[in-house]
């Protein structure tokens, strides 16, 4: 993809609309997703997204109009009813939360699919294009769609900014929040509504099937890089924006490529890189830390054993046969002894036998003393 092509791409009016729409939805879903993930409500996002589908179908059937506002209001209402249903089932029946999520998701989605199919078959609505709500189609975004998305997302961010501390305490410690007089129910309703609206914003572009990925994936990736809520929300918004715009542009330039799955492919790159390479929380980091720790333990425990061996003899620097040491070295003895000699703690005689050096003796004594005093100090490696 050369520069000229890119310039041409972005000077194209349709592409500008697609880009802007994907940007808005990526930033909004990414930010709100951080709260959904931290509340351990990732699956709720998925259920809400699927639950919006019958709303789209019903709104069209009733109003006979495919203006974005009408369809999105229908979607939002259906998403809200789905959320409420999950809450009621969880709190008032003996059905577990995950089951309630599963039931709501599949029932609403199934009902939605039936409605959409019926609508598509209606002679008055053959070109309604409601099927784009399934897997998303960024290329069909119109200026008026994007205008509505920007308005909704401005409202979302204003509320998020104003109620930042309320959302934060709600997510971290709901019971304590109630104990200091916060109207937790109200804050919960507002936060959930914002999540519903952020899902609704992305429906046409990403589709109900994969919309939850827009919420969850950027947030899960962002969590890897920071220990600060505000930074996590920013990074999550950034990841959402990049994956959203990249996916929308790619899918718009290749015919018949649905947008939702394309965005998810980009998102998965962020998630994978974050899971592996993020400092502190990344897998690679974990692995390196574990390796260093094991190496330390391997050499220092051998050093302490050498001290024990030497105490049998009057001379602490008495050399020992490698075979005798191997009984405690468990197969890695050659490497361990080489590591020790590199640090100057042990030396090998011409007859291949090993002995402590004076500095090795001091270090071994220090380690043993610390071990006995039960104060673990990092060995000086």
């Amino acid at each position: 993809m050369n520069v000229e092509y890119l310039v041409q791409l972005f000077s194209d009016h349709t592409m500008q609309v697609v880009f802007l729409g994907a940007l808005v939805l990526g930033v909004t879903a990414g930010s709100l997703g951080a709260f959904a993930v931290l509340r351990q409500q990732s699956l709720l996002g998925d259920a809400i997204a699927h639950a919006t589908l019958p709303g789209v179908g019903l709104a069209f059937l009733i109003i006979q109009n495919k203006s974005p506002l009408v369809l999105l209001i229908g979607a939002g209402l259906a998403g809200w009813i789905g959320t409420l249903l999950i809450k009621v089932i969880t709190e008032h029946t003996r059905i577990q939360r995950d089951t309630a999520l599963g039931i709501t998701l599949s029932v609403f989605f199934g009902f939605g699919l039936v409605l959409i199919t019926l609508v598509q078959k209606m002679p008055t609505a053959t070109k309604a294009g409601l099927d784009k709500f399934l897997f998303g189609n960024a290329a069909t975004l119109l200026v008026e769609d994007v205008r509505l998305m920007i308005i909704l997302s401005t409202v979302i961010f204003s509320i998020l900014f104003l109620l930042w501390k309320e959302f934060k305490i709600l997510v971290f410690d709901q019971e304590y929040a109630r104990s200091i007089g916060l109207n937790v129910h109200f804050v919960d309703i507002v936060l959930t509504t914002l999540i519903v609206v952020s899902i609704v914003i992305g429906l046409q572009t990403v589709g109900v099937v994969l919309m939850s990925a827009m919420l969850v994936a950027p947030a899960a990736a962002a969590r890897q890089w920071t220990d600060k809520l505000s930074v996590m929300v920013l990074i999550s918004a950034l990841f959402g924006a990049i994956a959203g715009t990249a996916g929308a542009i790619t899918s718009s330039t290749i015919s018949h490529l649905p947008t939702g799955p394309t965005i998810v492919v980009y998102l998965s790159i962020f998630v994978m890189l974050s899971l592996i390479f993020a400092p502190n929380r990344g897998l690679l980091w974990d692995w390196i830390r574990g390796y260093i720790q094991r190496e330390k333990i391997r050499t220092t425990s051998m050093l302490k054993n050498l001290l024990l061996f030497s105490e049998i003899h009057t001379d602490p620097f008495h050399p020992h046969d490698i075979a005798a040491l191997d009984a405690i070295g468990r197969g890695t003895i050659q490497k361990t002894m080489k590591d020790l000699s590199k640090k100057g703690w042990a030396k090998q005689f011409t007859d291949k036998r090993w002995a402590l050096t004076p500095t090795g003796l001091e270090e071994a004594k220090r380690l043993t003393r610390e071990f006995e005093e039960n104060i673990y100090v990092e060995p000086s490696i």
Partner: protein
Amino acid sequence: MVSKQEKISQPAIDVNDLTVAYREKPVLWDVDFQAPQDQLLAIVGPNGAGKSTLIKSILGLIKPAAGRIRVFGKIYRAQSRMIGYVPQRGSVDWDFPTSVLDVVLMGRYGHLGWIKRPGRGDVDLAMECLDKVGMTDFMKRQISQLSGGQQQRVFIARAFIQDAPIYLMDEPFAGVDAATEKSIIGLLRELKSKGKTVICVHHDLQTLKEYFDWVMLLNVRAVALGKTGDVLTAENLKRTYGGRAAFLSGAADEAEEAQQT
């Protein structure tokens, strides 16, 4: 707000005929509970006795099936900021992306009201409270990097910053080492000396007499309430812990001895 005269006669917390049930199963049954002011009081009982439920009912976090709860003679509303709550450590996700200072500042959210963010003055207060619990050095630390005892001290600092007349603490000694336990009890005594009422859910019968002035024995029903020395009898412990009282005989013996001297 409360005159000296009333202070002597009026209990800090007054619970009458409190019954709480989860579905059909009663967790608290017809409990009466009067917490005297300016004392360290422990709520003691076996697992499932309803200790946490009692605390949460007082705070209004749980809706009782029946009963009346008064705090300083009035129906309690969380907005009135009379109670500083220290929940069980395990009740939150310690991997939440926030710092020690941020958690303590949450104790100011009730005072701040809607929308307003904590300011310089709140941060100063938080630093003061962190200093009291010996956590100043950990101010900027991410909360997942804290040990159990440190987590507990952060929660206590968060309650301190509320500067409430009553503190309700759910197992403040659970899973902390001996040194932290001593420092926490020091903090509780300091609160008492400032005229605060401190009520703790407690588990260790061995330290009960040393730490607390008053004790409530609870096992779904209220078994006994009074000065620790008076209440901690073999008979009462048996009524609280039932057949499992054998292993508690040490504490009871001690209690009896204390009564005789």
